[in-house]
Structure formats: structure tokens, C-alpha cells
């Protein structure tokens, strides 16, 4: 700070000029943006139809992972809490839905609520712990939490249906793969709307404020404890719902599906997407959902470097390298890569000033 103090420009004392009016795109700019947005929307909606039938469920999975990334982003990006046990919320939601559908014979909608509820509960338990702990220690506790969920909770045969797993049939209206894909994409869209309103309203702002500095937040009358818990509740509900959707992709839930590897994948997806940025993290989730299949297929079907010469056992290495390069050159992940594009699409100028918050906001109470 010292140098900035010296370099400090004089304070503006003359009566402030009228703030420059907010940017409005020209009619042509407006048209262009709308056109592009429409095209994108059309493309997304076309995907389930375009991909070969055997890959439709991958598309669905991508939507679900996008939802999970949104959920994790609320902790990682907004509240600055690292959860390496997110597969626990996810799994609890999945089994919750399965149990509701199979054991309690509830309608699918009710099962979804059940999943949201169980997910929230699982998250609040962690949240209560988070209040006591320093971020780094908490991150490691979440790992342990995830293991307990997988090894203990998900192995209670009466709850999880034993070896064959807990059946989770799809709603009759969306029983085909393609229809179900649209359902999940729809849910993701709703979730993004919700997330947008969250960040644009007092709740989300309070959560982000206390991520940056709890004392300042408190001095502005924000109940730090309350809003931290709130963050966990929302994240848990989203993860739970995502779990329910996931459960009905293959229509059966088994414990083996929810391990530490999955939790790690979710964190990777969120960070690569760009923690704190809605559009970024969703793309991150989608990316990590399709990546394995994509690389396998690339390997099997095309002669494109680097997938031709190498054996399957090297594909993770290629992934890892890309990952590291992304982190080095685009710490803000996909969101940073697309910063200008995203701002243009959100009807602002194409060029945006670097925000002081910098890329990769949040995470373990990071300070810019």
C-alpha cells in the first residue's frame, strides 16, 4: 500500500459531474446480440437431437454437472468455502430421491423436494462445522465428511437398496432419454436464473461481502453466521436436486457412484470454469462431464493430435496438462477467457475493465 499512498492522486473536491449514463448498445449492436443469443439457445436446444442416441445421457449428465458446479460455486465462489465433499450432498440427494420414489412411492416432484431437503440438511451439518474452522482446515474436514457419506451412509442397505442399488425411475412424461435431457437442461436454466437473482439481491450480496471481509460485512449489519449457513443451505439444495436428476439418468443409484474422485472433479470443474462466475462454472461442469467420453471417442475415431499416437492410459495426463495450462494462463478459468464475450452478450460493452477482484475470486477466504 505504501507506494500507492505516495502516488495518491488528489481527491476530487469539485462538485461531482453527472455520472456517465449507463452504456446502451446501438440498435444494430442490440440486434447482433439478440441474434447471437438466439443462435446459442437454438444450438443448446438442438444438442440432444443432434448427438447420436448413445450420447444423449452424456448431454443430460453435462446439464446435471453444470447444476452441481453452480451449487459448488455458491460455496466456493460466493461464500469462499471450499467443499471437497460435495459428492456427499450430491449422493444424499440422489439416494433421497431414490428412496422417496421406490420405498415411499412418492411422485417424482415430491422426490425432487425430498432430495433438495436431504441435500440441504447434509450441507447445514457441514456449515455448522465450517463456522468453527479456518477455511483450510474445513476443506480437509469436508474430505472426511465425503468418505463417511460414501462408506457409512451409502452402505446402510435399508436406505440405499443394497447391492443392486436404489431404483430411481424417471417421471412418466420424461421417460425417454431425449425428453429427460430437456428436463435437466430446463432445471439447469431455472437454477441459473435463480442464481442470477441471488447474486443481484441482498442475500447473495451479503454472502459475497462476508467472503471478502467478515468484519466489514458485520459492520454493515450483515449477520455473518446466518448468511454463511444460508450459503450452505442453498448450495446443499442445489446439489441435492442435481443428485436427484443424476439418479434418474440411469434410473438406479449405487454407492460406487459417489467418491472423493467425484468431489475433486466438481472442484476442478468449478475452478476451471471460473469460481464466482455463473456462466463460467456451468461451462466447467459441462466440460468435465463430457471430457472423458470426448477424449475416448477422439482417440477411437479421429487422427487429431494428441489423441492418435497415445494410449488411453496417457489421456489423463493430457487432461492434467491442459488443466495446469488453463490455471497458469487463465486463473479465472473459462469465465476469464470469455470475459469480453460474456459482457458483450449481457448487453454491455465488449471490453470490460479488469475487475479489482481479479480472477478466481474466493476460495478459502482468499483476499484479492
Amino acid at each position, binding site marked *: 500500500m505504501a507506494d500507492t499512498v505516495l502516488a495518491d492522486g488528489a481527491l*476530487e*473536491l469539485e462538485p*461531482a459531474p453527472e455520472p456517465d449514463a449507463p452504456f446502451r448498445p446501438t440498435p444494430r449492436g442490440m440486434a447482433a446480440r439478440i441474434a447471437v443469443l438466439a443462435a446459442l439457445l437454438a444450438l443448446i436446444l438442438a444438442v440432444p437431437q443432434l448427438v447420436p442416441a448413445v450420447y444423449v445421457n452424456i448431454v443430460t449428465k453435462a446439464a446435471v454437472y453444470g447444476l452441481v458446479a453452480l451449487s459448488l460455486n455458491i460455496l466456493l465462489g460466493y461464500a469462499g468455502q471450499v467443499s471437497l465433499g460435495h459428492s456427499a450432498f450430491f449422493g444424499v440427494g440422489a439416494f433421497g430421491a431414490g428412496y422417496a420414489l421406490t420405498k415411499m412411492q412418492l411422485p417424482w416432484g415430491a422426490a425432487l423436494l425430498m432430495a433438495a431437503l436431504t441435500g440441504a440438511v447434509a450441507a447445514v451439518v457441514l456449515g455448522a462445522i465450517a463456522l468453527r474452522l479456518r477455511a483450510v482446515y474445513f476443506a480437509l474436514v469436508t474430505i472426511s465428511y465425503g468418505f463417511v457419506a460414501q462408506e457409512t451412509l451409502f452402505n446402510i442397505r435399508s436406505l440405499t437398496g443394497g447391492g443392486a442399488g436404489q431404483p430411481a425411475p424417471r417421471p412418466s412424461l420424461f421417460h425417454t432419454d431425449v425428453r429427460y435431457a430437456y428436463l435437466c437442461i430446463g432445471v439447469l436454466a431455472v437454477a441459473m436464473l435463480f442464481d442470477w437473482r441471488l447474486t443481484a*439481491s441482498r442475500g447473495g450480496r*451479503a454472502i459475497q461481502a462476508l467472503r471478502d*471481509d467478515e468484519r*466489514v*460485512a458485520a459492520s*454493515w449489519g450483515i449477520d455473518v453466521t446466518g448468511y454463511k449457513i444460508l450459503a450452505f443451505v442453498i448450495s446443499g439444495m442445489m446439489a441435492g436436486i442435481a443428485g436427484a436428476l443424476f439418479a434418474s439418468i440411469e434410473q438406479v443409484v449405487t454407492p460406487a457412484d459417489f467418491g472423493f474422485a467425484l468431489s475433486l472433479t466438481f472442484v476442478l470443474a468449478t475452478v476451471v470454469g471460473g469460481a464466482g462466475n455463473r456462466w463460467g462454472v456451468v461451462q466447467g461442469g459441462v466440460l468435465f462431464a463430457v471430457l472423458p467420453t470426448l477424449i475416448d471417442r477422439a482417440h477411437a475415431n479421429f487422427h487429431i493430435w494428441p489423441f492418435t499416437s497415445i494410449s488411453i492410459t496417457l489421456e489423463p495426463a493430457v487432461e492434467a496438462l491442459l488443466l495446469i495450462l488453463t490455471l497458469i494462463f487463465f486463473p479465472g478459468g473459462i469465465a476469464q477467457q470469455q470475459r469480453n464475450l460474456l459482457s458483450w452478450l449481457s448487453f454491455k460493452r465488449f471490453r470490460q475493465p479488469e475487475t*479489482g477482484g481479479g480472477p478466481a475470486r474466493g476460495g478459502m477466504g482468499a483476499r484479492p
Partner: protein
Amino acid sequence: MPVLEALEVSIRFGGVQALSAVDFRVDELEIVGILGPNGAGKTTFFNCVSGFYRPDTGRIFMHGQDVTDLRPDQRAQLGLGRTFQQVGLVRSFTVLENLVVAQHKSTRYNVLAGMVGAPASLREEKVLRARAMEVLDFMGLAHLHDSPIGGLPYGTLKMVETAAVLATNPEVLMLDEPLAGTGPEEGLAYCQRLKDMRRELGISIVMIEHHVPLVLGTADYVYVLNFGALLAQGDPDEIRDNEAVAEAYMGEGATSLA
């Protein structure tokens, strides 16, 4: 009845008696200055009053209500606003966003309504922004509304911080070294602005500041802390001629700060 009052506030950290039996009061529309050399316990006292530290003994009152057991955010709800020595702002937000968050406690719509984007919440959001712009205007910062916090010079940040606290519309405004990193003439202008605030917003102000002449020129009443204890108190003139204070500041033999 005083707006803010502290009785016999003491706190110790480990072996150090940071504050010992400090009495303090602020009345309506009063500007109170707190002077004292580094490590005198000024900021510690601020933290006790605003609720970040819990005093070992002594009570804090706002409008006669005992707030000693309340959390910082609860005290803020009651109209206590404060700034921090290291600028207290949300770094990842823009100036305007900061002032909008700062209005948290005065926001009507409930959190859920906000999440689902209820019309009421949308309407109020507009109000919040308008109000934020007003405050920025008042502080002469309106042109910065869209700029991110990071990158603004230190002095400006202190101004933005003050603006943010004003946006919480406090009854008492507690400023911790608001003039750090600003030149003398900005200092003067700032103090002038403080008086305007008092008049236009009808608030009381407490300020910790090293710049003795400015404090004496601005405050109606001044407390001087030294080694965690009250060294002196009184109106600026009394303090100016107080020998103990003079010694504390200028060393042996000094008889006046003037």
C-alpha cells in the same frame, strides 16, 4: 441522553492492559475526536464499542440501551457505523455495489423474495441504487460509481469507505483515521465535509486521527488516550493547553500543542 456511551471499559490481551476503565460519551449531533499516540488503544476502543472485542469489564450503551452483549451486526442495526484502519470495503465489488450492500440493514424485502426475484424486490433494488448514487454524489464520488475497488488510490478508498458507512445511514459515524494517506488540504476539505454531514444528515461523529490540528479544529469535544487509559478530555482549547497531552505528544517540557 447520549447517543453513545461507554462506562469503565477495560480489556487486556495476554499480559497487556490494552484499555483500563475508559469512560466515553457522544451526544446528539456532536463531533468527538479521539487523540493519542500509536498503541494508545484507540482502535482497540473502537473495536470494543462496535462489538468486535468484548470488554473484560465495563458496559457500552446506545441511546441508553445496553449493547455490550450484542454482536457487531446487531449494533450496526441500531445505527452504529464505523470505518476501518485498513480500508473496509468489499474488494471484488464496484463502488456502487459496495454502497448497495452497505444498505443491507435498511433493505425491506426478505432474502427469499430477492432470490426468486419478486417484483417488490426488483422495485426496491432500484431505490437502493438511487440512494447509493445520492450518497456518492454527496461525497463527490459519483463519477466513480462503476469502477472496481481494486486500483483506486488509497485516499479515494477512504472516501468511498466513508460513503459506504454513510449509506448504512448510521446515527453515530465512527471513523478510524479517515485522513491517513491524504494531503493537508484534502484533510481540511474532508473535515469541512464532516460538518456538512452532521448538519445535513443529523448524525454524530467520532473520529480517531493523528493529525492533531485538524481534530482540534473540527471536534466539539476531544478524548486523549495514552497507554490504554484516558489521559485527558475536554473541548479543543482545554486539550490544546493540557500539559500532560503536550508531553505525551511532544515529550518532556512541552506545555501546549499550539
